[in-house]
């Protein structure tokens, strides 16, 4: 089982390397992280926080958008691409279970995400610590951000595989992936904000809003990192609501979502004849 998963993972890494996905993911993360750490260096004196913690708060806001995007870009082709190239029927005649194929792809894509995230955050941390040795105090927050980013990415890899299995065409899967990203990462928050404003402190704000935040892995990720770092003041918007929700709940959401999305992906991939 492990051997078969690793065989698929190795192949996927070869493909990602050739297709420049590794390079693209790393460059994206490093470039955006460096830009943010440069831009985020101004307010340190005002907030009294160390420089790295402030950078972590900025990186959190960035990663909410970027990590799901990179994960979906890597995963939307996973099943639909095999179907369209005609490589899937042959693969499925091998003594390998469908979930093992997905697990192999997951291992490879997660590894690439880890490399990209570590490179990006690492670059930002190096810059912050070089400018201000006191920033070492923020390493805990950075570590938290790193592993939660990986879990967030894994959740969206699962979503990507599920959409890829359902669409069975690369173009369709790409459209669904972009739609999902827009919906969950951009429009979801806008919708919640609009509802909170309209509700003006009523039942929605007190009861439904916290649940709605936890129901979205991207929001749970932001919430967890901002409450954990006590850096809510450095963030704007939805972060302000973070204090209302216990930290274990957002942590649970971050941990559970990858499992749920991967189970969904396995279920979507299981059905369907060729």
């Amino acid at each position, binding site marked *: 089982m492990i051997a*078969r998963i690793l065989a698929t993972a190795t192949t996927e890494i070869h493909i990602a390397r050739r297709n420049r996905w590794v390079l693209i993911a790393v460059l994206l993360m490093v470039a955006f992280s460096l830009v943010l750490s440069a831009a985020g260096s101004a307010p340190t004196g005002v907030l009294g926080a160390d420089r790295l913690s402030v950078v972590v708060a900025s990186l959190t806001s960035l990663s909410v958008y970027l990590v799901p995007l990179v994960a979906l870009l890597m995963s939307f082709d996973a099943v639909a691409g095999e179907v369209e*190239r005609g490589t899937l029927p042959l693969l499925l005649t091998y003594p390998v279970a469908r979930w093992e194929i997905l697990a192999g792809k997951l291992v490879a894509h997660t590894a690439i995400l880890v490399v990209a995230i570590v490179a990006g955050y690492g670059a930002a941390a190096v810059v912050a610590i070089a400018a201000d040795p006191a920033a070492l105090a923020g390493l805990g927050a950075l570590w938290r951000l790193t592993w939660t980013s990986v879990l967030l990415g894994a959740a969206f890899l699962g979503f990507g595989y599920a959409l890829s299995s359902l669409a069975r065409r690369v173009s369709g899967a790409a459209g669904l992936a972009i739609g999902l990203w827009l919906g969950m990462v951009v429009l979801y928050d806008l919708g919640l904000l609009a509802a909170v404003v309209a509700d003006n402190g009523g039942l929605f704000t007190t009861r439904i809003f916290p649940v709605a935040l936890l129901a979205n892995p991207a929001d749970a990720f932001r919430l967890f990192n901002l409450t954990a770092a006590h850096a809510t003041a450095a963030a704007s918007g939805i972060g302000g609501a973070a204090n209302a929700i216990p930290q274990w709940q957002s942590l649970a959401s971050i941990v559970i979502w990858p499992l749920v999305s991967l189970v969904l992906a396995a279920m979507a991939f299981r059905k369907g*004849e060729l």
Partner: protein
Amino acid sequence: MTSTLTISRLTKAFGGVKALTDVSLAVAPGERVALLGHNGAGKSTLMKVILGLIAPDDGDISVCGAAPGSAQARAQVAYLPENAAFHPALTGLEQITQYMRLRNLNPSGAMELLGRVGLAGAAKRRIGTYSKGMRQRVGLAQALIGQPRLLVLDEPTSGLDPVSRRDFYELLDGLAADGAAILLSSHALTEVEARTDRLLILSGGRMVAQGTLPDLRREAALPVAMHLSAINGYEGDILAALPGAIRVNGALHLTCAQDQKLATLARISTMTDKIADLDVIPPSLEDIYSHFSRRDGQ
């Protein structure tokens, strides 16, 4: 002897359209069986059912003693799809390495395997740069991995040049000699004739004939053609002696049923002083194939 592959009364329909109707067949260890049929006759569907890629509506199938598509069956079955496709970014070596590892084999033999299909020189190039024939050979190489007990090959020689075809059939002979059962589909009748033990003809989703070529030839009972050239001046005598003979382009053409062949030849042999030459033309493979594939479903 237990068959490696047994199918009885298999039926499969796609949305009301019957792709396979009541198909039964068996392939024994060491046997090379060719599956013939027009495009759309159901060859690929039959293969996909055997591989467990699509589920049958009705019928019993046993693949190496297990259900089609079960882990036990897949461990012993190799498949070569029509127009074998691979990820263009992978090299031939990487692709074969993956397939060997999926079969729990040490991938150190991958290079040797590629060498057997003549791809040693291109093993470290991306498959995207390969020609169609080279991709087909990657497909062959993966079908040779391990010691499959059943090989299901969908038009394995399409895209191969004549020399590669001969090499390919030699590989198959070796596998069959080791006890592998081989089911291959083809359009090239003359090619499979000499290289397989038995022929199956599918037409409109039904098995219309199966047997060795002599069996099928007998069963079809197609007429034998004879072409005679007369010595100058004797044409009239011959026409008179052989009712049914006609003059075509200066030669005399005659057809007779299989069981009349010897009697007809005996009559001809009484006129050896009047006949310059004689050709006996048995029904061609194409004739036999058309006979069976038209008999049903059209």
